[in-house]
């Protein structure tokens, strides 16, 4: 699995992170290592992802689902405390033309 510098750039853009060309060059092989490590899981199950599914599909009982009762929400100041809110909104760069 090879990771291209272009993919790193896309990831960085999606994550709103900025890196220098040097950093990106360095990250590509590092990412490859991480992915190779994660791929070991696939080797263990030898392509049989059904057993992974089983782990995922542990079940929840009907009684354990949440009752439809309103809980207090957080105040707007708290919800927006990590941004410079405007009129209570989260402002972002305009997404439509």
């Amino acid at each position, binding site marked *: 699995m090879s990771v291209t510098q272009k993919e790193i750039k896309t990831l960085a853009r999606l994550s709103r992170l900025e890196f220098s060309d040097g950093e990106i060059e360095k990250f590509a092989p590092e990412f490859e290592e991480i992915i190779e490590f994660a791929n070991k899981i696939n080797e263990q199950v030898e392509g049989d992802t059904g057993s992974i599914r089983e782990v995922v599909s542990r079940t929840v009982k*009907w009684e354990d*689902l949440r009752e439809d009762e309103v*809980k*207090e*929400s957080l105040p707007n100041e708290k919800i927006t405390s990590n941004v410079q809110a405007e009129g209570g909104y989260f402002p972002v760069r305009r*997404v439509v033309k």
Partner: protein
Amino acid sequence: MKYRLVSGLETHVELATATKIFCGCTTAFGGSPNTHCCPVCTGQPGALPVLNKKVVEYAIRAGLATHCTINTTTHLDRKNYCYPDLPKAYQISQFDKPLCEHGYVELESGKRIGITRIHIEEDAGKLVHESGFTYVDYNRGGVPLIEIVSEPDISSPEEAKEYVEKLQLIMRYIGVSDCKMQEGSMRCDVNISVMPEGATEFGTRTEIKNMNSISYIEKAMAYEYERQIEVIEGGGKIVQATLRYDEHTGETSVMRTKEDAQDYRYFPEPDILTVVIPESKVEEIKNSLPELPTDKLHRYIDELKINPATAKLLYKYKRVCDFAERAFALGAGVKNTVNLIVGTLYSKLETEEDKEKFVLPVSADEMAALVKLVDDGKINITLAQKTLSAMAEEGKPVSAYIKPEDIAGMDDGELESICRQAVEANAGAVADFKAGKEKAIFALYGFVKKATQGKADIKKADEIIKKLILG
């Protein structure tokens, strides 16, 4: 060449639960921006979603009411996409194991529009675009939705209209959503393609996103049908694309084509375990469903013998039906009840929404009391209409308008003397009646009604008049 229109709809319906799908924040419409929010619905790191039981219950209700099979083992999936209305950068939805599958909605013609699936998911936040910025409000984020996906069985804008109206009606009947298109609690994506009459393969389809009015759906479909034919006839090819409909120009335009289609990288949602729904629960929900609109309409026409036009005016509004049926149960005659509702009460309820809500200060008991007076011939229908109209405006009981002495029936002597006058004053009609024109007697009824201000028992008057004439 003639072309067939082929269309399927994806309909999003906001569920009328009190709280969001994965947290206890309120689902109330409106509210100051970002005040119905918590760490879960704003996607804060470490926050864990817990599925709302009522969402599952409502989705099953919707599934059963549209004849779907229910998958009692079901899980949620992550649909990944990056957009500011989605704080987690993924939407929790359902991919390969939707809660409900393989249902249908029946149109008036008897044609069935297949329901491929109904799944549950969370709504996204609301975006407001102004000057150089987009402002995000997450109050709507996490509000529970069901997405109802139809088969491509719809073959005209009229069918699409009827299908959406039927869905709306069913969802309102079973109480899972108010389906207000103008408030966004119901919205449709319209898939549409055309194919030459007789062809066996579907044409390439386009999808018109986010339609929030039935009349726009009809117009957009009609426009897109013509546009696609024009492209094909001109030797061109339809490009698979997502379109938006401009309400002002009445035209569709391209938002994105298949080339920039996103890969959503669906995978099972690890934060929510697979849900196992007991069969007994599904059975319980099934038993709690009210009579469905189409069944009610048929019962009104076939069993209660309400004429079809009137029945159609009634069955669209569940609260009106509940009111009428309570009056029936209290002994009010069907015919007089429904005629008074449609004739008198509806004139007080101007808009669809008024009829939908059906808020009038007339109780079913008072309605039944009034109708029974008509049924028993104690007052005539005109007086009943006048009385009901006043009741609806003033909120007073029947007894405020019609005194016991008014209907204690006039004593027989008085009625007989009025009948005698009627016979004397209508010699022509009497002669006609004697000659075999049965309808001529109505002139005499009219005289009696007028002379007694509608209080006479016409059945009794009829007996007296016939005795007087025929001896």
